[in-house]
């Protein structure tokens, strides 16, 4: 369901191009030019290549398309066979086609009468098997064979089952029932392209044929058609039905609009050859426009400007020729006369190319430049370091990773190891952690129930990480700095970085101290107490990192060393345990501007000893001065907290 794979047998490719490279060399060279060769396997006396086809190249979902690439890299010509349909004077099986060019950009078809259904010849069966298909019967095999050979899907109807001898292309209303050739029933999605005869739906266009009009063992007359279906409508319908077919993969990419007649002729030739019968109608070809090859100019100056090297004109035209892009050198003008391009360059020839209809990926100059570059060989380019000025302005969405590094390093040096866990978590985990799912952002199409909600916290994953590690480790210290997703719905959605940690070796004050140090390092004035939660077995914390760094202040200023010595004293205070240490410390500090530091030295029962530093920046202190402040402190502590000196 992700990328398109194309299998190509070497023997089949050789119908179209002489191959002189060894399979291994061929695979490497094709990979280099963009046709990624995933596997090369030997099957009987043949070699099967497995290619990964990029979404821009519908033509490479065919043997002919791959042969063209091989021809280009070997600089050889393609052996193209042409087939002609001889139209009889008398048309016995006419059909009325009611087109809609928005749905079918082109609709080409023919009736063939009096065929006989039987197995297709062995050589064709072998080739189909080699590309991973199951042979069914001659007519069906031919439609598959030609689609893979030429890259344009086609379909065969049992002519006698087309009621009213008419076909109308239209869009499904939605909900119609449809049974496909492989006997599966579907309810059609709205806007799917369908074909109706006078009575019923007979085809889910571009995706699957209908059972009611399909080829059976009794089919005598067939209507073969090649359509160019609208890529978007095909893709929408096939996504809605979860139904991809080989045809829909080609249609989605945009099919060769100029290739329908060739495809029909090739199929007709094979039908007449393998199933007998006779052409029984004119060739219908309903189209909005001619779908001719288009012209596109390549400027050599632009080529040089984009690629950074000068490729000789002869080499450029050689490459374009090998890709069948019919280069013609148009003019030699001076770049300065060209107002559109500012780059002054002597090499400014314009090469006019004619783009074949099967290369609908080539639309602008740059597409042609890529064609030249890839065949020139990406590994033949010199590697240069860009010139020019280094941008000096700070970009929008700038993130200063040095801050993050600082924060992470503090946790690391405090003993925590870092984890990265999933953003998506399960309903079960959320509910167990006490969250209501309606308050959490949810993914509509989760890969599984395990990963359905966007985490509103890192704690859930950290707790799980803790439990996961418990059997193997006695000491567990883990942190994560990652995004959480807040808001009840998308309108309120907010992505925020949280920093969270879990530990079973550190106590509350150790964790608090680590966070205090972290906040200090980031220049935040915040206190960490409210972010810490004590668990049965340890401590977990979570801070809103985005919020902290919003107020980050990394400016530091040197304060000159004091010239006069401090007086330091320890003050033991007896106070009720109800009085917070922080309150006492703040109160002490407030009493004089010459108290430069207060810290808690010791605590025993109701006695707390504070370490107080008195220092004046301009002069020496006297013991009398300090004594005054001390008595002021004691007085205030007694008044406010009923605290006494010990």
């Amino acid at each position: 369901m992700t990328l398109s794979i194309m299998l190509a047998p070497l023997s089949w490719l050789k119908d179209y191009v002489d191959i002189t490279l060894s399979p291994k060399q061929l695979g490497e060279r094709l990979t280099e030019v963009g046709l990624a060769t995933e596997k090369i396997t030997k099957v009987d006396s043949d070699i099967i290549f497995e290619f990964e086809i990029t979404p821009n190249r519908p033509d490479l979902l065919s043997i002919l398309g791959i042969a063209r690439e091989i021809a280009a890299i070997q600089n050889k010509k393609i052996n193209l066979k042409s087939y002609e349909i001889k139209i009889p004077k008398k048309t016995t099986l006419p059909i009325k086609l009611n087109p809609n060019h928005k749905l079918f950009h082109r609709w080409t078809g023919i009736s063939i009468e009096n065929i006989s259904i039987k197995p297709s010849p062995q050589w064709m069966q072998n080739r189909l098997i080699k590309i991973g298909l199951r042979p069914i019967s001659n007519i069906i095999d031919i439609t598959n064979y030609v689609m893979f050979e030429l890259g344009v899907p086609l379909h065969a109807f049992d002519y006698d089952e087309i009621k009213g001898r008419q076909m109308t292309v239209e869009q499904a209303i939605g909900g119609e029932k449809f049974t496909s050739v492989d006997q599966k029933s579907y309810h059609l999605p709205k806007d799917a392209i369908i074909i109706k005869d006078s009575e019923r739906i007979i085809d889910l266009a571009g995706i699957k044929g209908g059972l009611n009009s399909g080829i059976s063992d009794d089919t005598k007359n067939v209507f073969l058609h090649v359509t160019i279906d609208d890529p978007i409508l095909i893709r929408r319908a096939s996504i809605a039905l979860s139904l991809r077919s080989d045809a829909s993969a080609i249609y989605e990419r945009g099919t060769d609009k100029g290739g329908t007649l060739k495809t029909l002729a090739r199929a007709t030739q094979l039908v007449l050859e393998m199933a007998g019968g006779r052409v029984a109608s004119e060739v219908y070809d309903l189209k909005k426009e001619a779908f001719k090859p288009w012209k596109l100019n390549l400027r050599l100056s632009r080529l040089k400007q984009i690629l950074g090297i000068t490729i000789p004109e002869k080499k450029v035209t050689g490459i374009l020729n090998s890709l069948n892009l019919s280069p013609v050198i148009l003019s030699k003008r001076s770049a300065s006369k060209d107002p559109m391009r500012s780059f002054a360059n002597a090499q400014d020839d314009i090469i006019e190319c004619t783009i074949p209809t099967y290369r609908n990926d080539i639309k602008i100059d740059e597409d042609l430049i890529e064609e030249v570059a890839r065949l020139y060989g990406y590994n033949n380019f010199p590697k240069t370091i860009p010139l020019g000025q280094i941008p000096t302005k700070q970009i929008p969405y700038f993130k200063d990773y040095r801050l993050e590094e600082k924060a992470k390093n503090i946790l690391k040096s405090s003993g925590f190891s870092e984890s990265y866990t999933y953003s998506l978590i399960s309903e079960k985990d959320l509910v167990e952690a006490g969250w209501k799912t309606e308050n959490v952002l949810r993914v509509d199409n989760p890969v599984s129930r395990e990963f359905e909600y966007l985490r509103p916290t890192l704690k859930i994953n950290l707790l799980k990480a803790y439990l996961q590690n418990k059997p193997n480790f006695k000491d567990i210290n883990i942190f994560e700095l990652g995004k959480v997703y807040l808001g009840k719905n998308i309108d309120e959605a907010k992505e925020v970085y949280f920093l969270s940690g879990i530990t079973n070796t550190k106590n509350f004050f150790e964790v608090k101290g680590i966070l205090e140090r972290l906040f200090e390092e980031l220049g935040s004035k915040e206190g960490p107490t409210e972010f810490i939660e004590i668990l049965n077995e340890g401590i977990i914390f979570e801070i809103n990192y985005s919020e902290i760094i919003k107020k980050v202040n990394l400016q530091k200023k040197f304060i000159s060393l004091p010239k006069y010595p401090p007086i330091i004293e320890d003050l033991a205070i007896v106070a009720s345990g109800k009085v917070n240490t922080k309150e006492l410390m703040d109160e002490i500090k407030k009493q004089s501007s010459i108290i430069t530091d207060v810290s808690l030295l010791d605590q025993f029962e109701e006695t707390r000893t504070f370490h107080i530093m008195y220092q004046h920046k301009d002069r020496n202190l006297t013991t009398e001065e300090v004594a005054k402040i001390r008595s002021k402190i004691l007085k205030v502590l007694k008044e406010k907290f009923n605290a006494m000196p010990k």
Partner: protein
Amino acid sequence: MEEELIQIKNSAVSLILEAEGLKTLEHLRLQFLGRSGRLTLEIKDIAKLPIEKRPEVGRLANEVKKAIEDTIANQELRIRQLTDQESGIKKQKIDVTAPGIRPNIGHLHPMTQVLYEVIDIFKLLGFQVADGPEIEADYYNFEALNIPKYHPARDVQQTLYLDTRKSKVAPGETILRTQTSNMQIRVMEKSTPPLRIIVPGKVFRYEQTDASHGFEFWQFEGLMVDTNITFTDLQGVLDYFVKKFFGEETRIKFTSHNFPFTEPSLEGYISCTVCKGKGCRFCKFSGWVEALGGGMIHPKVLENVKIDSFKYQGFAFGTGLSRLVTLRYQMDDLRLLTNPDLRILTQF
């Protein structure tokens, strides 16, 4: 008098620091601080000074006294430690081959270590780091990058859609970003060239997990826009990066590829980090491992952000940051990176 005090201090300190035994030390203490010690006598003389000079000299004398006391205390400690050690060595031999006692230091995740290294490399080339939303509008993740709705290129990046019930947003328009390229658009539409940015970040895909795929993984991409940035510059910058990151001997080769937002586009392979290109199981015996993708920014993308595609051009490239980590440490499973098992985390 002040000079004498300082002299006393200097001579006391130097004598004390030279003392090798506790006895000598005690002797020195008496000599300076004893009842008739040099300092004690000097302090007695302060009373003879004029009254206005006394406080200042007094303070100095106190300082000197404290300095001598501190020096003696320190020296005593040193002498004791030294003799303890000597007698210790004599008493019991220590086995110096036993492991040291390590401080308890944690580990940064390998992704973090690789990310910071990558950022450092690109900083040298003048790149700045951008960081942006993971919950994203379809427009920034796809449409502005030349991937319209129903484009087959969307197959490569199967998308997780957000539940839009209870909100004013139309369903299907808000997604978890599938690539960090959304930031190309967001940064470019708000600034003007020259630009050199890198974007690391988490991306999400609707994908079943296995050893090399995940529904959540980390990408990292770069963008350079100016008047003269060329395809050879893209190759040069990528070559510079892989050599700096994986080592000077690393070789890089390119193949053509298709991304809707670059033209021409390339894929970069580096010589296998395990076998150095000889061929091994890690590189499926090819000698090369796929490492990055990139190309020249598609003119349509530049037009979408209102940058004149005639005047300016540039390149963009990206890689799995998770992939760089697994390549660097030769890890065989992406899921190891989101597993918080300390047996994994403490290896880095």
